């Protein structure tokens, strides 16, 4: 008998014009002590299923059809007050971002005791004892002391543990986890997944894990449901679905996950996307403006040479220099990038990889060290003209496609701005022609020019960013986590586009990512960073085959992979 049983669930969001169906006829069930994964890309309706189950659909969403049963009791038709009493007591929920899930102005103790006493008839002292016990169970050291702290005094992974403790306050029968590890570093992710699995078994909780990450599904779940645009396209045991996917969407979704184990030239794309194969006009680079007049002199030796870059941020100010305290973001980082290659920087959050990008592009001034680009010292550029010339050769693509484009400007103006600013074209009609060609070339089409950024999806916006970066005819691109905010199918498209552009234009790239699989496919050489230090630099294949530094080995071992699933299953079967 399954604890949670969802039958024929259809959720609709009526709007003035029409009705949007977020999930259509979804059937799922979870047993106690088992973990069900719901996987899909953005817009698949996977979060909607979770929200509908716990009765927190965003307005104006409603359950149009179907039933939800919790341990034999129908719960989708309960009145709001009974539903509220169910939440937290019988169904717990864990959200994606541990940094925002906790009330920043109340102590952990307050939030825990508040929740415990709401659901269980305990005195304040008993509730506190239970809270300490819970914190201990989720692996927070010194729970007695830490319980009286505020959320900001915990790290991201620790906060997610607190969130899990809060979800488990009243021993719920079902826990729904909506992207529980997406915002976390890979090593923290591994810990949290382990914790969830352990708690699920110990407390005999039925768990629903909603994620876009096939690796999480492989590591964690017993059953998996694959959703695509509101439909449940495949449902079954995890190892079966992942090992032998039946539905073409599942097949292409699994294929699109960048493989960390082998290097392929191009990313397999999710080809199950309707209407995506629009043929775009490809421009002939050799005769086009974009390829023409690339008057950069070839350089001997490395194009970019970074030596002993040190970057410090002031953490404690004082009138006396000796009392000031600094956080060392970069500690004597040095590497070379040769023309035409892609150099990867990999590391967890806080390792300083983005700081390197900012120093190179001149957003930060380093405390020490030098950076030479095409033989010119970057950190000491004073002349405005020289700075501009340097900026023209070096462009940046940022992580967040939503905040890196000015939402009040049309796409045409966004892409044209660098051309006009650097006076790269003489007439307006020429500028317009170049913008049109660029938009075609990155796969957006001319029609995009008249629109505003908010009319595009994340992947399309990232294409706009790329078009804008290309508009100065740069020879060096700095890509700071360009795809980490995107779905896996979109990620494959964007990475392929970057590869194509690199081949055509002979671009040199600094590629920053936390994702080892992506790094492996994109880069010729890789640098591994931790705590502001560059630990190891080597050829890509060499790094993956024979990592030298212990930290690199650790990183490699932590990659959640589909291989892991088949391996653990093999062991099970052998045992």
């Amino acid at each position, binding site marked *: 008998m399954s604890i949670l049983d969802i039958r024929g669930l259809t959720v609709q969001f009526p709007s003035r014009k029409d009705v949007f169906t977020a999930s259509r006829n979804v059937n799922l069930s979870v047993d106690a002590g088992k973990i069900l994964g719901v996987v899909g890309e953005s817009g698949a309706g996977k979060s909607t299923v979770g929200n509908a189950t716990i009765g927190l659909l965003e307005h104006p969403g409603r359950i149009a059809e179907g039933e939800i049963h919790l341990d034999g009791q129908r719960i989708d038709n309960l009145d709001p007050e009974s539903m509220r009493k*169910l*939440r937290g007591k019988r169904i717990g929920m864990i959200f994606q971002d541990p940094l925002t899930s906790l009330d920043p102005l109340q102590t952990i103790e307050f939030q825990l005791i508040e929740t415990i006493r709401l659901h269980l008839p305990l005195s304040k002292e008993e509730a506190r004892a239970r809270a300490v016990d819970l914190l201990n169970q989720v692996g927070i050291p010194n729970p007695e002391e830490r319980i009286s702290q505020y959320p900001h005094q915990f790290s991201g992974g620790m906060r997610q543990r607190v969130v899990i403790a809060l979800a488990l306050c009243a021993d719920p029968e079902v826990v729904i986890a909506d992207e529980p590890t997406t915002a976390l570093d890979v090593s923290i992710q591994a810990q949290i997944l382990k914790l969830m699995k352990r708690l699920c078994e110990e407390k005999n909780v039925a768990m629903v894990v909603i994620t876009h990450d096939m690796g999480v599904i492989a590591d964690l779940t017993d059953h998996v449901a694959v959703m695509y645009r509101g439909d449940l396209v495949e449902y079954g045991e995890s190892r079966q679905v992942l090992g032998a996917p039946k539905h073409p969407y599942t097949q292409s979704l699994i294929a699109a996950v960048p493989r960390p184990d082998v290097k392929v030239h191009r990313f397999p794309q999710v080809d199950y996307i309707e209407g995506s194969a629009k043929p775009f006009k490809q421009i002939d680079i050799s005769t086009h403006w974009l390829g023409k007049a690339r008057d950069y002199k070839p350089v001997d030796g490395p194009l970019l040479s970074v030596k002993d870059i040190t970057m410090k941020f002031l953490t404690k100010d004082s009138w006396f220099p000796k009392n000031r305290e600094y956080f060392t973001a970069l500690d004597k980082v040095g590497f070379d990038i040769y023309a035409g290659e892609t150099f990867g920087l990999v590391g967890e959050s806080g390792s300083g990889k983005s700081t390197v990008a900012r120093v190179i592009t001149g957003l930060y001034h380093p405390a020490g060290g030098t950076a030479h680009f095409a033989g010119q010292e970057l950190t000491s550029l004073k002349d405005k003209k020289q700075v501009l010339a340097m900026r023209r050769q070096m462009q940046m693509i940022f992580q967040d496609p939503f905040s890196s484009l000015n939402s009040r400007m049309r796409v045409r103006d966004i892409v044209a701005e660098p051309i006009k600013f650097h006076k790269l074209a003489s007439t307006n009609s020429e500028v317009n022609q170049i913008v049109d060609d660029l938009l075609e070339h990155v796969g957006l089409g001319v029609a995009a020019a008249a629109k505003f950024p908010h009319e595009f999806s994340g992947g399309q916006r990232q294409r706009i960013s790329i078009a804008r970066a290309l508009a100065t005819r740069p020879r060096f691109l700095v890509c700071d986590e360009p795809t980490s905010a995107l779905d896996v199918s979109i990620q494959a498209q964007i990475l392929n586009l970057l590869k194509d552009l690199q081949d055509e234009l002979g671009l040199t790239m600094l590629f920053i990512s936390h994702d080892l699989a992506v790094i492996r496919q994109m880069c010729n050489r890789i640098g591994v960073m931790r705590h502001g230090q560059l630990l190891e630099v080597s050829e890509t294949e060499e790094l993956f085959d024979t990592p030298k530094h212990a930290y690199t080995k650790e990183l490699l071992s932590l990659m959640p992979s589909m291989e892991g699933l088949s391996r653990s299953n093999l062991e099970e079967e052998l045992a």
Partner: protein
Amino acid sequence: MFGFISRRIAMALVVMFVVALISFLLFRFVGDPVNQMVGVETTPEQREALRQRLGLNDPVLTQFFRYIWGAVQFDFGNSYQFKQPVADLIGRRLPATLELSFASAIFALLLGIPMGVYTGLNRDSWLSKVFLSVSLVGISLPTFFIGILFIFLFSVTLQWLPSFGRGEVVQIAPFWDTGFLTASGLKAIILPAITLGLYQMTLIMRLIRAEMLEVMRTDHIKFARARGLPNRSVYYVHALKNTMVPVITITGLQLGSIIAFAIITETVFQWPGMGILFLQAVQNVDIPIMAAYLLLTAFIFVVINLIVDLLYVVIDPRLRTERGRA
């Protein structure tokens, strides 16, 4: 914490010093004080003697420090028009203004916060729409007009409330006459307090509404709901506290301006506060009063800002540790 407070106080002192400099410069550059004090038939010798007596022939720096030294001891010189110490004049008027400001701030907060919470939570209810449109009137009509309207309606037509003055006052301290203890005093404060507080009330309401809408969308509110917390505790324990930092900033600044710029309301209602005193001072080029008023206003703002800064730290623990470390 101690370091934080002492640094804030040091900053406040710098501000006060600069304001003192500006108000001192009033004496030097806005007309010749001797001309203001004596008639046309005074002889140059008499003028010179007066200058000597007032210390106007001393070096500027000496004069400045004498001025500051006086100001620290609440000695702002004598008013040109009343020939009385400025400190006494202001001291006699200050309670009236403070009471009026206090009443209107209470009015603005007591009505503005609940209305803001209500309109933020029930965005589409008809009552919210009524609150919002009525408050729009409060913000768009000028204060003097609202004051006159109130007088016409409640004093002239309905004859419920007095149209001017403070009513009967009771002396509770040598410098403090309060109107709060008599029926006529309480009646008299209603109209001016509402007139003065209407704008602030609207502002606070709209600010809380906007912040509420923002906070209700955050993840921690969603998580609070997912933990099964009842609406009451989601709204008032978790949401309202998170709206407080910007609200305190604005409320603090507004409170300062209520006290400092009650001039228009005081004029309309003939309220015997500092506003009228200041207006008369401007008309008669009574520089000592203007200068003292400037200092007092700056002092009020500085004190309020100091309190606001401390309240931030009380409300938001994130600031506490940063400051603690800093």
